[in-house]
C-alpha cells in the first residue's frame, strides 16, 4: 500500500468507429497514502467516467492502474474479481449518503465486513469504534431517517472506512451540506486519511471546499491537469 493509487495513460472510449466517444484520453493521476486530492471539471469533462474506472465499476479501454503494489488494469489485462476489489480495497462516499434505510447506523457501517464473513459482534465493535472517531457514536442505534444530513454523511464516511481500504472515492460528498458542515466533512476526511493512511479522491463542484485541497486535478476533455499548493486544509 506504499504507493496509494496510481493511474497512467488511462483511456476510455465508448463505442467504435465514427460514433466513438473518447471520454478519457490518457489520464495520469497519483494520490499517495494519507493524501486528499480534489478532482474538478465541467460537466461532460469525463469526471464520472474517471471515477467509475477508479472505482473498478467500468473497465478502461487501455492504460494502467495500481492500488498499492497491486495492478488492477494493465491495458488488456485486469484482475479477475473486481467485485472483491471494490469490497476490500476501495471505499465509496456518494453525493447522497445512500445509507440502507432498514439498517441502523451501526449495521450500516458494519454491513460490509459482515457480508465478507466477519462475525457480527466483531464487525459491530469496529463500526462503533469508527463512529466514535467520527463523533456519531451517540446515534449508533438510530435509523438513517432519524439523522441530520451531516450525521448521515459522517455515517457514510464510516462505512467507506470500515474495511480500511487504501483508497476512498468521494463523489460530491458535500453537495447537500451547508458551508460549515461541508468544511467539517472535508476536515474529517483529511483526519481519516492521515489516521488510516488512506488515499482519498474527492470529486466536487463545491467552491467552498476547493481551496482546502493541497493538490487539485482539473479534468477537461478527458485529460487531467494537476494544480497544487493552494491553501491548508480546513482546520
Amino acid at each position, binding site marked *: 500500500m506504499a504507493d496509494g493509487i496510481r493511474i497512467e495513460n488511462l483511456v476510455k472510449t465508448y463505442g467504435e468507429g465514427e460514433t466513438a466517444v473518447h471520454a478519457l484520453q490518457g489520464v495520469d493521476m497519483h494520490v499517495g497514502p494519507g493524501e486528499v486530492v480534489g478532482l474538478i471539471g465541467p*460537466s461532460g469533462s469525463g469526471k464520472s467516467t474517471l471515477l467509475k474506472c477508479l472505482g473498478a465499476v467500468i473497465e478502461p479501454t487501455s492504460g494502467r492502474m495500481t492500488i498499492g503494489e497491486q495492478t488492477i488494469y494493465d491495458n488488456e489485462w485486469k484482475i479477475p474479481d473486481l467485485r472483491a476489489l471494490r469490497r476490500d480495497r476501495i471505499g465509496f462516499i456518494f453525493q447522497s449518503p*445512500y445509507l*440502507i434505510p432498514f439498517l441502523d447506523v451501526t449495521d450500516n457501517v458494519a*454491513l460490509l465486513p459482515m457480508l465478507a464473513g466477519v462475525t457480527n459482534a466483531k464487525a459491530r465493535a469496529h463500526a462503533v469504534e469508527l463512529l466514535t472517531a467520527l463523533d456519531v457514536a451517540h446515534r449508533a442505534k438510530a435509523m438513517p431517517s432519524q439523522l441530520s444530513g451531516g450525521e448521515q454523511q459522517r455515517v457514510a464516511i464510516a462505512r467507506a472506512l470500515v474495511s480500511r481500504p487504501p483508497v476512498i472515492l468521494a463523489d*460530491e460528498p458535500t453537495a447537500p451540506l451547508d458551508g460549515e458542515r461541508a468544511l467539517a466533512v472535508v476536515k474529517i476526511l483529511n483526519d481519516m486519511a492521515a489516521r488510516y493512511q488512506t488515499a482519498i479522491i474527492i470529486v466536487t463542484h463545491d467552491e467552498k471546499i476547493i481551496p482546502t485541497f493541497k493538490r487539485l486535478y482539473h479534468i477537461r476533455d478527458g485529460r487531467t491537469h494537476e494544480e497544487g499548493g493552494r491553501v491548508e486544509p480546513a482546520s
Partner: protein
Amino acid sequence: MISLAGRDILHSWGKFVFTGIGLGLLIGVTLTMAGVYRGMVDDAQAMLDNSGADLWVVQRNTLGPYAEPSSINDDVDRSIRAMPGVARAANVTYLTMQIGHAGRDVRVMVVGIKAASPGEPGQPPHLIAGRQIVRAHYEAVADVKTGFRLGDVVQVRRNRYKVVGLTSRMVSSGGDPMLFIPLKDAQQAQFLKDSDAIVRQRARTARNPALNPPGNPGMVDAVTASQTSNPYVNAVLVQIKEGFSPDQVAEPIRRWQRLTVYTRAEMEEILVDKLIATSARQIGMFLVILSIVSAAIVAFIIYTLTMGKIREIAVLKLIGTRNRTISFMILQQALGLGLIGFVVGKIAATAWAPIFPKYVLLLSSDSVRGFIAVMVICAIASLLAIRAALRIDPAEAIGG
C-alpha cells in the same frame, strides 16, 4: 451473517403485513376451495360408510342409485338374501327434494328404509338424540344439518312425519342432509301423484279400449290399481358374510338376478371419479387460477418493492455485495411474504370453514401441500425482481 431481508421486513412491517393479509385471504380462499373438494369426497365416503353396505344391487346397466336413476322390484331383496355369502339385504329408496319447514326451504335426501330393523344396511348407524324409526309410517330420523329438532313435524309430499331421532354426518354426495322415513312411505312419495292427476289418469285409462274392453269391467280396476301402487325401490344394499369376498358374492347376483352389482370400491369410484368429477375439475380450475393470481400478486409486490430500492441495491453492488446475497435477500422477502400470507390464509380458512353451508374438510396434508405450493410460487414470482435487481448497474450509485 446479517439477514437483510429480515431487517427490511421488520423495518417496513406494516407494508409486508398488510400485503401478507391481502395475499393470505387469497390463500385462504384457495385452501377453502381444496377443502370444499375434500368435503365432497368425504361426504361421498361417509355416505357409503354409513350405509353399512358391502354391495349395491341396482338396475342393470345403470350407475345407480346415487349417480343415475335405478329402479328394481321391491321383492328382489328376498331372492338376494338367499344367495351364497349374503348376510343381510335391504331395500332402499333415495329421493332428493325440497321440504318446507318453519318458513324456510330445506333441501334433503329422503331415504326410505325398512322400519324397526336395526343393523340392516341403509339404517342410520348412530343417533345423537331420540330413537330409530319403529313404526311403519309417519316417523322420521333427520340429520342435524337439516335444522330439524326432535318432535318437529315435517311434510314430505302429502304426508306429515314426526322427527323421532337425530343423526349426524348422514349426507348425500352433494352434501344434502338425509331424512330417513319408512320404506313404504318413501316408495309412495317417489311416485304418488296429486288427487287431480290421479282422477285424470283414471279417466284416461277408462277411455282406452285396450285397458277397458267391453265385457271385462274388472280389467280397468286392476290396471288402475297397478298405476297407483309402486312396487319399486332404487337399490338393494347387501352385507356379506364373513369369509366371503365382495366379488365372490357379487358375481352370482349379477349372473342369476341379471342385475348390476357394485362393490364398495366400485361405488366409491362412481361417486368420486364420475359424480363429483366435474365439480372437482371446476375446483381444480379455480385452484389453478387462484395460484396464478397469487403468483402474479407476489411477483408484482416483490418487483415493486425491489424497484423501490434501486439505489440501495446499486450501492450494495458497488461496495462489493455478491449477486447471490442480493438475490437471496429478494427471495427471502418473497418467501417471507408467502409465509405471512399462508399463516393468515390458514387461520382465515379455519375460521370461516364451519360457516360454509356444505362440509369443508381442511386436511393437514393439504395444508402442507399448500404451504409448499405457496413457497414455490413465491420463489418463482421473485425471479422477475431478482432478474431486475441483477441488471442494476452498480455505476448508478455514482452520479453523472
